[in-house]
């Protein structure tokens, strides 16, 4: 073995690397847009269409959680123009002074926004954010394992005998504790200790009956590794296409409705392009592109016409009228409530 050859190889590699590094630092600043969004959430066709329409170079960067996005944006120096936080995080971004009041409500395409998504609690009147996608967190059940009523949180909080040892719970603290609070009769973000004691006891009693606390249910429920799970509606829709025995349940005690919204950052360098993007996604045809990719609804009227056929009538995407009332947005919890939740969550997973 000659180390000389290796050394030459390494040297060549290093020079090439340095050349690319310096090139990466000097991209031109004209006509750019830097989007910071959840991973695997943005349709490449949408980006391409926007880039062509406005002659803008779009760069997409991914994050994996609201807290990561918040921490990075707060630290500054990141170079992003647009962020897509969840409903309960929008008020935090606003209070920390991180968002630009870009007034989507005055934009041309705002007329397309479904009225129910205009006066939303996290951004009344839509002064900061444009709708991206919304969905629900409920339960997915494989009817070959359990044929009873799937529309209850008891599927995971008090599993029926058929599902013991076969239930998964996604490790999302806010969603899981939120549903558990509604199950025992409280309001999300409550600080009522009597309610929280019930929540803790219910969760602790249910945990031994769970199989796992993991993501990736689209695969695991499609191939029968898991028989029931706390799950998102869009994912359950994908599962049903693979495995028709799986149904989506809307817990009647209360389930979580969420929406991710597009906001412009205060320290954005490409404000005009960012605003153009907000307006762009409120167009029905473009909103349909978003939904066709990630498989969630978008809150833009008229987009149904451009949506894939299978989504138009899917009971996972179109909430049946009888279950509409049980859906709740998670508010932004106080520091005290959050401390209590973290303590319960730690206890649960110790």
């Amino acid at each position, binding site marked *: *073995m000659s180390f000389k050859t290796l050394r030459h190889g390494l040297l060549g590699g290093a020079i090439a690397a340095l050349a690319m590094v310096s090139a990466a630092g000097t991209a031109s600043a004209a006509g750019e847009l830097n989007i910071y969004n959840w991973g695997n959430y943005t349709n490449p066709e949408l980006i391409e269409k926007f880039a062509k329409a406005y002659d803008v170079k779009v760069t997409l960067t991914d994050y994996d*959680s609201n*807290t*990561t996005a*918040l*921490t990075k944006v*707060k630290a500054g120096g990141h170079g992003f123009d647009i962020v897509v936080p969840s409903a309960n995080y929008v008020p*935090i971004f606003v*209070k*920390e002074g991180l968002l630009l009041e870009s007034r989507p409500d005055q934009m041309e395409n705002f007329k397309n926004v479904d009225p129910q998504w205009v006066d939303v609690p996290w951004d009344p009147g839509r002064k900061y954010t444009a709708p991206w996608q919304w969905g629900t967190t409920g339960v997915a059940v494989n009817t070959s394992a359990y044929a009873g009523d799937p529309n209850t949180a008891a599927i995971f909080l008090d599993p029926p005998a058929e599902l013991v040892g076969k239930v*998964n719970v996604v*490790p999302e*603290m*806010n969603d899981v504790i939120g549903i558990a609070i509604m199950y025992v009769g409280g309001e999300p973000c409550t600080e009522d*200790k009597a309610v*929280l*004691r019930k929540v803790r006891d219910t969760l602790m009693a249910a*945990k031994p009956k*769970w*199989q*796992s*606390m*993991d993501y*990736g249910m689209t695969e695991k429920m499609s*191939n*029968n*590794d898991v028989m029931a799970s706390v799950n998102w509606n869009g994912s359950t829709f994908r599962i049903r296409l693979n495995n028709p025995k799986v149904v989506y349940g809307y817990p009647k005690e209360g389930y979580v409705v969420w929406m991710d919204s597009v906001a412009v950052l205060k320290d954005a360098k490409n404000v005009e392009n960012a605003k153009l993007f907000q307006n762009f996604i409120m167009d029905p045809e473009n909103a349909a592109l978003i939904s066709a990719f990630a498989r969630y609804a978008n809150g833009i009227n008229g987009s149904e016409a451009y949506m894939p056929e299978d989504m138009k009538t899917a009971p996972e995407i179109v909430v049946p009228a009888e279950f509409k009332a049980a859906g709740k947005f998670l508010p932004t919890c106080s*520091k005290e409530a*959050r*401390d*209590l939740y*973290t*303590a*319960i*969550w*730690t*206890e649960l*997973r*110790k």
Partner: protein
Amino acid sequence: MRRAEIRRNWLLATPALILLLAAASGPLLIAVVYSVLEPGDYSGVVWKLSGEGWFRVLFNRDIFDDTVSLADAHLTIFWRSASLSLMTTFFTLLLGFPTAYFIATRPLRQRMLWLFLVTIPFWTNLLIRTFAIMEVIRNEGIANSTLMALGLIDAPIQMLYTDASVLAGMVYVYLPLMVLPLYASLDRLDFRLVEAAYDLYASRIAVLRRVIIPLVKPGIVAGSILVFIPSLGAYVTPRVLGGGKNMMISNLIELQFGEGRNWPLGAALSITLLAFVMVALIFYVRNMAGEQRNG
């Protein structure tokens, strides 16, 4: 030792120390400061002194009746991580030593190829590699189908989400961290010493125990450190293969920096871990060095 030599040693170490101070140890001072502040409303900290972060590392104030007790959740999680790391180190050594020995006894020009063969699987992403392991051991996976086809079992054995599957996954992920330092040390093993031992009618076991292992001890030390400490911080593998019902120490710390939004507690927990590992490491290295000198 002469002054000039000490100066030379420090000079040699300086560039590495500068990089580490700038991009690892220095920023860590921020964590030390944060650990004695109060958590901010939504994230970060507010500049008010508070011992609460440190207090909560060890003690738990019951959220329902405010009684103070030992934080058994933290201790349980800590112990789980430590014992998993110990087992991982043991099994990587068990598999890694013969593998490194095998590579080191190949003809000179083949060794590089075998080394590459050890590392190439790790050029692919950790997550999809872990998913691939999952595909082997799931109920309808390859391992169970094969066993059933051979008639060895009638019904699938639950392998996924067991402690054994987590351990197997960890050993898989951390194996190169053991093999490479062991190889670096075994490669210079002087087989004349081994031959001399055989000439003195030593058995193979005795040669291994009394001659080879003492000679490659630096490699064993390096490999054990490189497996034990990083595996303390592992969380992808335990979560995917273990089902994630129980947290590891790094999940706990991440929870505090993430959804829990309690940075001071997260910082205090990390510094506790750092102190624990540092003491264990120094003790371990001194102990091994001492044995080497006396043995």
